[in-house]
């Protein structure tokens, strides 16, 4: 079983900028399909849904709701190939 890191993608800010976790669509243990929404993020300009890059099972959520996270920072880990 390999764990895939899901980092916060660039959302229209320069690299090094950040966004706030609005809420998680998923919880630890949930199975997700590639492309499914994982988390809703807020910037100063819009709401963004972050899709899952892979199909797998949510192993860890690494950012809590209302937390501000920098671009590139890992939001969650997904187990694949299990």
């Amino acid at each position, binding site marked *: 079983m390999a764990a895939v890191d899901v980092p916060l993608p660039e959302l229209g800010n320069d690299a090094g900028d950040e966004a706030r976790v609005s809420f998680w669509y998923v919880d630890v243990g949930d199975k997700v399909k590639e492309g499914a929404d994982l988390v809703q993020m807020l910037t100063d300009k819009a709401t963004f849904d972050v899709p899952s890059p892979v199909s797998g099972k949510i192993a860890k959520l690494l*950012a809590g709701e209302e937390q*501000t996270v920098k671009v590139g920072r890992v939001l969650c880990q997904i187990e694949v190939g299990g």
Partner: protein
Amino acid sequence: MLSRESKMSANLREPIVGDETKTTTKAGRFPPWLRKRIPAGGEAREVRRLLAELGLATVCAGAHCPNMPECYARGTAAFLILGNSCTRSCRFCAIEKRAPGALREDEPEAVAQATARLKLRHVVITSVTRDDLADGGAGHFARTICAVRERLPHVVIEVLTPDFQGSHACVDTVLAARPDIFNHNVETVPRLYAAVRPEADYRRSLDVLAYAKSRLAARGGDQCGTAGLSSRGELAEASTAGQASRATSACGHRIYTKSGLMLGLGEAADEIRACLADLRAAGCDIVTIGQYLAPSASHHPVARFVNPAEFAAWEAEARTLGFAAVASGPFVRSSYQAESVFASREDQGRPPA
């Protein structure tokens, strides 16, 4: 010493992630129509890598544009030339007012190279305002247009310029390089200029558009003829046939003028209506209407979120006024989907106005 951020997180929720996260207040919720899906895939990263390699800035990143992930994933970007520090301090814009730097002599060529490598069919070139330069950067705009045209004769070139402090000579310099679209944004209604664009002037911006239009109309008859442009194929054909006369007419067709305004800054409906009428009176061909979104809490606040139905109504009204093309919607920006907006124009094939 604790940073402001760590003090904030200490007072609020226990952080799950390390010290580079912070907790913030609940401000900044958006209505459902201001929601974007981030495209999966690595195309956006490729665009960013190319821009970094060529040392190019984009207004997409500079303005914290929420369309950036989508546009980069589609392989498009709007280039920001003349540096990344602006001599003006408009209250809606994220680009900072700082001491401007020297011009990059190789920037026109870098833009041409990026346009080629991104395989753009429609390139948008914009800039910061450079009131410190004698020509306001108009010569640099012209050189950039020429560099792109030289390398890629068939690419549609759209420039989004500052007001050049109203200088007709500067507008002439840009037009002489024959962009396909001359875009200058009025941004907002005149009443809000003092609050939103304190160093600009509504009438001056209208005059820039009207002057550009008058020059193009004068030229249209003697240089471009009345052939017009009925399809992309015809554009390419005209361009190939007209290689020798490229200096006078890059693509053998008219140049369009374009402008845009933001809604949600505090303007009233009758002011929007009057602004659209002013733009038409200035001969403006294409108009974009989008939701203003504040880059930060210290910028001009968002007065209201305009819903998609109202944007649609403004689009219909603008079409009634006779604009050749209109884009109106919450995420519409001056350069957003510029290619398809241009392709949607209704006057294709008609003689130049």
